[in-house]
């Protein structure tokens, strides 16, 4: 194809020589980012995969009751006959072994998520099972607790013997598998997560809008005021960052509570009567106010950094071309800040969707978010599978939103500062 290739002075083809030179600089560049990549891998990417896995992981049943799980394979769970004597025999042996190995507690907790009462059943059966040494196995086990004669217990064990389970995800969307393994809604008085997801999303959306409405004029002032004044204003904007989150949140409580400063003031002024004090905290209003305040800087800063790059001559040009201040703003200034609006909004929305300390303190009964429940499943109930499933759904929500944003605005247009 090539008649004669260009070579360097020592006869190496020019192309190869160039690649070599480039490779070296590429390797050097790559080495510079290795620490960051390693950090991200261990601190961010691996935990996410760990979370994804935990949301479906279910090895515990097969681990603790290994023989029972195998023996149950031949049992027809759709019929209405209990497993046969052989299954009971292996089950007793498995329970005895698990009791000695102290793994029964974990199994008890796992199965209790699916069926309340399993925890006490298994814990009770652990020590007492040691007494069973010979047939009849089923009769003696059922004597320990009548529940062993309930066919649904055995259906549950068989259903959950797979290494992967969908039950965490089902629980995360208010569904469950019934005794026969069919997907069903949770009883209505236990349905909580779907409405929480929805509440988290719409409240975060409203918080984002509030931040935008309040932050836009501030960012505009920051970008247009003389340097000295705008520096002072910037300090005021950043001030919340220098105060602990808890302090800021509790200050809002002091301000907004019914016996708080704002209500006192309104009573003194005569706006409301002493009996008609307004409930502004420990409900949605509290969450809106405190969250908007806390997240406002995250809206202002990207907006400011974008506005700073818009020359004042744009507005002047628009005015001189005959546009009223309003038209000039809507048609010229606003479109040029879209990248800042997008960046600020997506930042505030994503932060808001994952916030839990503030809603926990000021949200009361109605103003709490899905993250509060994730936190509680992580640290209180230790139901990490459900926490992971809720987390995965939240992550998927954020990613979907991000893609939507990319489709509409274009991620390249995002300016974070």
């Amino acid at each position, binding site marked *: 194809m090539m008649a004669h290739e260009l070579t360097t002075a020592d006869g190496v083809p020019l192309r190869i020589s160039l690649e070599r030179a480039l490779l070296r600089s590429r390797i050097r560049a790559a080495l510079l980012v290795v620490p960051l990549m390693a950090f991200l891998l261990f601190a961010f990417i691996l935990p996410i995969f760990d979370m994804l896995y935990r949301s479906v992981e279910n090895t515990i049943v097969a681990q603790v009751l290994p023989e029972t799980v195998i023996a149950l394979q031949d049992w027809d769970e759709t019929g209405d006959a209990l497993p046969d004597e052989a299954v009971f025999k292996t089950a007793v042996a498995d329970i005895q072994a698990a009791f000695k190995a102290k793994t029964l507690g974990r199994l008890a907790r796992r199965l209790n998520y699916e069926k309340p009462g399993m925890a006490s059943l298994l814990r009770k059966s652990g020590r007492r099972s040691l007494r069973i040494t010979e047939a009849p196995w089923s009769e003696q086990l059922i004597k320990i607790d009548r529940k062993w004669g309930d066919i649904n217990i055995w259906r549950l064990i068989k259903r959950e013997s797979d290494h992967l389970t969908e039950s965490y995800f089902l629980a995360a969307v208010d569904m469950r598998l019934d005794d026969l393994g069919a997907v069903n809604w949770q009883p209505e008085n236990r349905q909580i997560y779907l409405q929480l997801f929805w509440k988290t999303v719409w409240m975060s959306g409203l918080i984002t809008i509030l931040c935008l409405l309040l932050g836009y004029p501030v960012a505009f002032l920051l970008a247009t005021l003389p340097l000295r004044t705008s520096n002072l204003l910037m300090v005021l904007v950043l001030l919340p960052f220098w105060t602990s989150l808890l302090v800021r949140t509790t200050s809002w409580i002091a301000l907004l509570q019914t016996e708080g400063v704002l209500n006192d003031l309104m009573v003194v002024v005569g706006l409301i009567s002493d009996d008609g004090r307004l409930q502004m905290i420990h409900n949605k209003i509290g969450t809106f106010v405190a969250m908007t305040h806390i997240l406002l800087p995250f809206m202002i800063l990207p907006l400011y950094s974008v506005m700073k790059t818009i*020359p004042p*001559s*744009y507005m*002047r*040009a*628009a*005015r*001189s*071309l*005959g*546009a*009223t*201040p309003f*038209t*000039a703003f809507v*048609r*010229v200034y606003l*479109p*040029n800040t*879209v990248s800042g609006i997008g960046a600020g909004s997506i930042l505030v929305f994503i932060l808001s969707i994952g916030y839990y300390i503030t809603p926990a303190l000021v949200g009361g009964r109605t103003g709490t978010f899905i993250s509060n429940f994730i936190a509680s499943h992580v640290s209180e109930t230790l139901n990490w599978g459900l926490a992971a499933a809720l987390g995965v759904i939240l992550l998927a929500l954020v990613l979907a939103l991000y893609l939507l944003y990319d489709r509409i605005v274009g991620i390249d247009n995002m300016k974070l500062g």
Partner: protein
Amino acid sequence: MPDAQEALVAFEGVQKTYDGRQLVVRDLNLDIARGEFLTMLGPSGSGKTTCLMMLAGFETPTHGRILLNGTELNRVPPHRRGIGMVFQNYALFPHMTVQENLAFPLEVRGMSRAEIETKVARALDMVRLPEFGGRRPAQLSGGQQQRVAVARALVFEPDLVLMDEPLGALDKNLREEMQYEIKHIHESLGVTVVYVTHDQSEALTMSNRIAVFDDGVIQQLATPDVLYEKPENAFVAQFIGENNRLIARVTEMDGSFCTVELEDGQKVRALSVNVAGAGEITTLSLRPERVVIGPGQDFADNRISGRVEELIYLGDHIRARLTVAGNDSFIVKVANAHDHVRLSQGSEVPLGWASEDCRALDAGVGNAAPA
């Protein structure tokens, strides 16, 4: 070309201060005729841009009136003044295409779609960019953006167009090309242009009249040739074109002339333009091309000597720097003609000029009379 037409724009006793202590513009009185190309020229901080911004409506005068077509503008907001404006960095809207940029002033005036299309197309033709309507400003070169900015300021057919250092961001060649282009557009449309620049050659090239600003005051308002040849004060003489400055003391007034004594005691005659009287300090202004080296020429009735410090060969002429009467940056241009004088560095040479070409002006800043 300050012809007898009625003034389109009139500044009447306009003053402007930003901080309440210092006047940026002091007592500005200026009439701009319909169809005129008037340049406000001056160093930065001289008040010229402030004047332009007051005219556009982005600054309000602290005192005085500005009239457009006989109507007082002070309370008219910018968007109702109907004045086109070209900004320093073009201020093209980056999120709109060229077409949309041009259509913007027409849309806000509520014109019909068809009308807008015609006018936009015509404006693009005028600036020779008919192919570029669909592009974004960022996809154009600096010169093209400049032309779009001019087209946008003109597309709604204003009576008056303001240009605020519109060519400042362009390189030298492009700048010159654009100077001619703007001048031609001005001539063909007959629109009135108020142009702000700190580049005196730009001002000389394009303007009908130039207002030279310094320290918030118009130092001289005149046509380019008058401004160059007959500066009325030391600032204008120094600011416009190349100038030799000699400090001297007036010894005798003599009708329209005066006799002055240079720092080294030599005496010369000069045209008395702006001197207070005998005994006062004056600045003599003398264009380099009006000085001759060597004896001869009858018109050169002033003769003194100077020492050659430096010679720079520039092809068509030789630029000679001399020390004359204590001024060591006295420039003389020697035409590279058939029989020009051969100079050598360090030599004393005789110089001469006509008294009419040497203008005795005010003392200038920092040249107070010696005690």
